[in-house]
């Protein structure tokens, strides 16, 4: 179908700007470079060009763990979750790729935790207490420790309920605490009474009054004792007499000391006498020995005389 002959002639197309082809090609090249550069950057960001080693974490429950989430060490990401499997033992196996340059933070003694808070995502953390331990070998399998805040809530609620029940028991009307507080209140009431602390300590005002009366009597007794012991002003008391007696006793003791000195001298003389007597006794022994010798000689002499004539006796015995 041709256009109507009386239709207006369409305006001539505008002249294209200069270098359209060059500018379009430039845009194409620029966009291709940008897209390629961005793809390479994303690949680098996802660790495509890094050499990694595999780490397998075994957990009872992998809830909250996502592919791509980080494994952190001291707050720094050092690995990325690549896959989550269900192992033949029914436990979750979290496969993590750790770049080789960050693998030196993981040791054989490292501990791995899986923490899930009330708010926020789940976190996988690594703790290496002893950095001198040997490096964690590739494809190591470690059990991850769980720190689940949500799982702690039922236990927390049970503990809180128990605590509240105990608190309710404590604060009941007939509870020990309430009774104790009533006793404290009664005691503080007594403390504010006419006898104050004394009434509270002794249990009643009557007892406090008795104690005060006793104290009064003790005071009176002490006054009398003082009067008797130390005397009234201007008079001598028992203590004064005792002091005078002590002075006299000191004089007696001095006399006794003198007498004892004299006794010592007498004893020394008696000792000298004794020693003389001992010497004399020794001389008497010698004298006695000499007397015995003389007597023996006399006896021998008498016997000699008796054997001589006219005193001779026939001493011969004749047997029948």
């Amino acid at each position, binding site marked *: *179908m*041709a*256009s109507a002959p009386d239709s207006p002639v*369409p305006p001539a197309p505008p002249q*294209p*700007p200069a270098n*359209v*082809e060059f*500018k*379009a*090609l430039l*845009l*194409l090249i620029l*966009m291709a470079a*940008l*897209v390629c550069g*961005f*793809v390479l*950057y*994303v690949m*680098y*960001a*996802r*660790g495509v060009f890094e050499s990694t080693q595999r780490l397998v974490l075994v957990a009872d429950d992998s809830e909250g763990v996502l592919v*791509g*989430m*980080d494994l952190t060490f001291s707050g720094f*990401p050092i690995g990325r979750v690549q896959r989550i499997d269900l192992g033949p033992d029914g436990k979750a196996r979290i496969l993590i790729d750790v770049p080789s340059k960050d693998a030196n933070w993981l040791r054989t003694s490292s501990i791995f935790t899986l923490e899930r808070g009330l708010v926020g995502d789940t976190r996988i953390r690594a703790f290496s207490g002893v950095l001198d331990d040997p490096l964690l070998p590739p494809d190591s399998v470690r059990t991850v420790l769980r720190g689940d805040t949500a799982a702690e809530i039922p236990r927390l609620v049970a503990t809180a309920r128990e605590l509240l029940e105990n608190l309710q028991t404590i604060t009941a009307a007939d509870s020990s605490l309430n009774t104790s507080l009533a006793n404290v209140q009664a005691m503080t009431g007594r403390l504010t009474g006419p006898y104050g602390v004394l009434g509270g300590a002794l249990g009643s005002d009557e007892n406090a009054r008795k104690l005060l009366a006793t104290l009064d009597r003790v005071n009176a007794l002490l006054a009398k004792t003082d009067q008797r012991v130390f005397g009234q002003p201007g008079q001598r008391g028992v203590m004064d007499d005792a002091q005078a007696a002590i002075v006299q006793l000191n004089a007696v003791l001095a006399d006794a000391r003198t007498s004892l000195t004299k006794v010592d001298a007498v004893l020394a003389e008696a000792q000298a006498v004794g020693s003389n007597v001992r010497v004399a006794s020794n001389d008497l022994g010698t004298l006695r020995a000499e007397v015995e010798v003389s007597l023996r000689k006399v006896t021998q002499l008498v016997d000699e005389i008796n054997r001589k004539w006219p005193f001779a006796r026939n001493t011969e015995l004749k047997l029948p």
Partner: protein
Amino acid sequence: MRTLSSWWHMLHLVGIALVMGFSRSTYRQANRNATYRYIYTGTWQILPWFTLLAALLSLVLIRIVIVTALSYGLSRYALEMMVRVLVLELIPLSAALFVALRAGLAFNSAQLPATAQTAAVPDIMQLQQDLVPRVIASAFSVMSLATVSGLIVLLLAYINVYGITPWGLLDYTRTVGRVFEPAVTLGFALKTLLFGLAVAVVPTAAILENARCNVTLSSTLQPGATRLLFVLVLIEVGALAVKYI
């Protein structure tokens, strides 16, 4: 019934455009020149302004997100949220709408020969000369605007979160790597391509259909604008559903 026919006409045109787009005979010198011209008008002329506008709006949104996240103690999620919301969702959609306003809805059927306007079956040669370069240029335009603006937004996000310092680059790179998973990156590229295709084909199909059926426009709204908006939202919702559901 007319609605179904209209949708079918549009899908038919999409199929033709795709087949011709993958045909070597389409890329003759004349068609390449047409493609360059469309790329120039659809990308070169609007790229600086769109990038500037996107940077300004993104800067406002980035500040809002950072301040809000800091006040709630969720600053570690702010960067990831900005990348996911701005770069992956808002920027491509904005680029598609901008290209649609600039190029897609500016298509004038009067420029086509009368036979092409009234033919029951689209003239393949005419479409090869006009539709395919438009589709290619629109797809490239959407992708270019989304890429450049996305990179500018990534740069602005880094500066706002870490400041002008290289020490946050490692952490930032890890976050970007965590967001741009392979499936997400492919979905982003596919969505941008679909946006470009929709921006080029939907208004063109609507205009050609109106010319063929001699439909008198009852309003000043460009034919196919509502449908284009619907298709764009459909693609966006579909991408979100695939990604997050």
